């Protein structure tokens, strides 16, 4: 077990070296797909042998057929579009408000003193429990859900910007200041770039929370994919439930992969 902790890639036998490395690389790359295939095969086998009832676990064929139907009929796009748009608007609004607040808290002591109690109690506040309140204030439609996503995601943004900016090495500041950099230039050229990795980590934390919030709110008060999933479960259309869960998994995965890409592009120099 612990052998792999030593350096294993030391000696490479000569001869068909390139063919071997090729084969090894191919084997490595195929492993995740093999896992996927194994899961699908096991799933198919379990349903074909009728180990579980179709209500609990429909066969993969049925689930993918249902998914295809949802895609082709356009049913999926309208519900999914609604949910994703709400999540994105909420997260963007949270970023627009939260990031400047975080910077202000890092740069100005007065801001930190005044805002930190709100952050200290607003952060642990389970915002999801505000669903009934927001519904009363802003209605059952999109606005209350966007506001809820905003309320949930604004704190991770504030904390990310604040901690990121306050961790900027003082040496960088001193160096820039001793070269005569003005205050706003200091922010633009030193503090902001140095905080980018923390901000992107903040986005990566905020986005899944935003998605959870949207789907949960929709499950409780209706609308979008959240409602569709609950409806499907209520009428025991399990294939649809599985199809929708796969869709939400894919959405979350794509969103995370996109941010990871941005991180590699713009914050590759910082440790991940």
């Amino acid at each position, binding site marked *: *077990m*612990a052998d*792999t*902790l030593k350096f294993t890639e030391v000696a490479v036998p000569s001869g068909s070296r390139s063919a071997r490395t090729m084969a090894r690389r191919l084997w490595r790359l195929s*492993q*995740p797909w093999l*896992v996927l295939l194994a899961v699908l095969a096991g799933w198919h086998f379990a349903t074909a042998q009728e180990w579980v009832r179709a209500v*609990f676990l429909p066969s993969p064929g049925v689930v993918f057929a249902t998914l295809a139907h949802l895609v082709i009929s356009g049913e999926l796009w309208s519900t999914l579009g609604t949910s994703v748009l709400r999540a994105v608007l909420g997260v963007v609004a949270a970023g627009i408000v939260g990031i400047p607040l975080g910077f202000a808290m890092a740069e100005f*002591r007065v801001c*930190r*003193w*005044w*805002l*930190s*109690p*709100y952050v*200290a*109690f607003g952060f*642990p*506040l*389970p915002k*999801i*429990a*505000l*669903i*009934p*309140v927001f*519904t*009363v*204030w802003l209605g059952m439609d999109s606005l209350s859900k966007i506001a809820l996503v905003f309320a949930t995601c604004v704190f991770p943004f504030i*904390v*990310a910007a604040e*901690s990121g900016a306050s*961790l900027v090495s003082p040496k960088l500041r001193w160096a820039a200041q001793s070269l005569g950099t003005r205050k706003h230039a200091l922010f633009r050229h030193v503090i902001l770039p140095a905080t980018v990795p*923390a901000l992107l980590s903040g986005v990566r934390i905020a986005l*899944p*929370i935003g*998605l*959870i919030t949207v*789907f*949960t709110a929709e*499950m*409780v008060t209706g609308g979008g994919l*959240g409602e569709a*999933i*609950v409806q499907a*479960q209520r009428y*025991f259309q*399990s294939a649809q*439930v*599985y199809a*929708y*869960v796969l869709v*939400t*998994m894919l*959405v*979350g*995965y794509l*969103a*995370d992969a996109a941010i990871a890409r941005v991180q590699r592009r713009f914050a590759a120099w910082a440790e991940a």
Partner: protein
Amino acid sequence: MTAALALGQRCLPAVTGLLAVAVLFVAWQAAASAHWLADGFVPSLADIWRATRHLVRTGEIGGNLMTTLRASAWGLAAGILTGVPLGLSMALLPVFDRIVTPVVRCTYALPKTTLIPLLVLWFGVGGATNVIVIAITAALPLIVYSLRGAREVPRVLLWSARSLGTSRAGLLWRVVLPAALPQILTGVRVALGFTLLVAISCEMIVANQGIGKLIGQYGDQGSYDYLFAALFVTTVVAYALDASLRWSTGALLRWHESGQRGQRGRRHG
């Protein structure tokens, strides 16, 4: 004179903080009692306080809070017991890592509450469904943080332990685990935040008790003073849990030389 001034300087943040909270409360009370907002939308602080006392006296909040916390504790414990070993073994066995990573990446980004309708099909409405969703939610950050922690263990430590004749199991238990502990504890803190969020979400969607259910019920009835009372109690409990975790993390990591790195990790969480 200077001493008094220094004391004043030190107390200033705390004083301003209290003042900030006081301003919010005064504004809230003023808005409620002057009827600036439509009646009932924002209950007055006095009403919320009365509702809180009533909820505490009848034991309604205690019982439901216990339900929520019990589900969270079981879920978090299950998440720690599966996530940490999984993350550590992923760091030690590259093959295992390559097999598990795609699964982890897919489930990591999955909005876990959408699993609830699915799990209701399997386990029905009630405790098991919620605990499983919470456990899945808690396990994933723990896998990621333990993996990262175990990967960052300095090779020198491993080599020295090996050369001193430590067995492989001993290596895992006495070197890798302690060295990865700061990261694992950061993972626990992240997981705790998600745990409460998901626990309350579950209860709002499917449950017959718990804080989430209580809040949803008061929302439906339009008793917003009770709703805010439950919300405030939950916030205080969540804050206390996080604070006690932070405190015990500090106590557990007192031996750790890179206390600063731990500090940074905690702030990010």
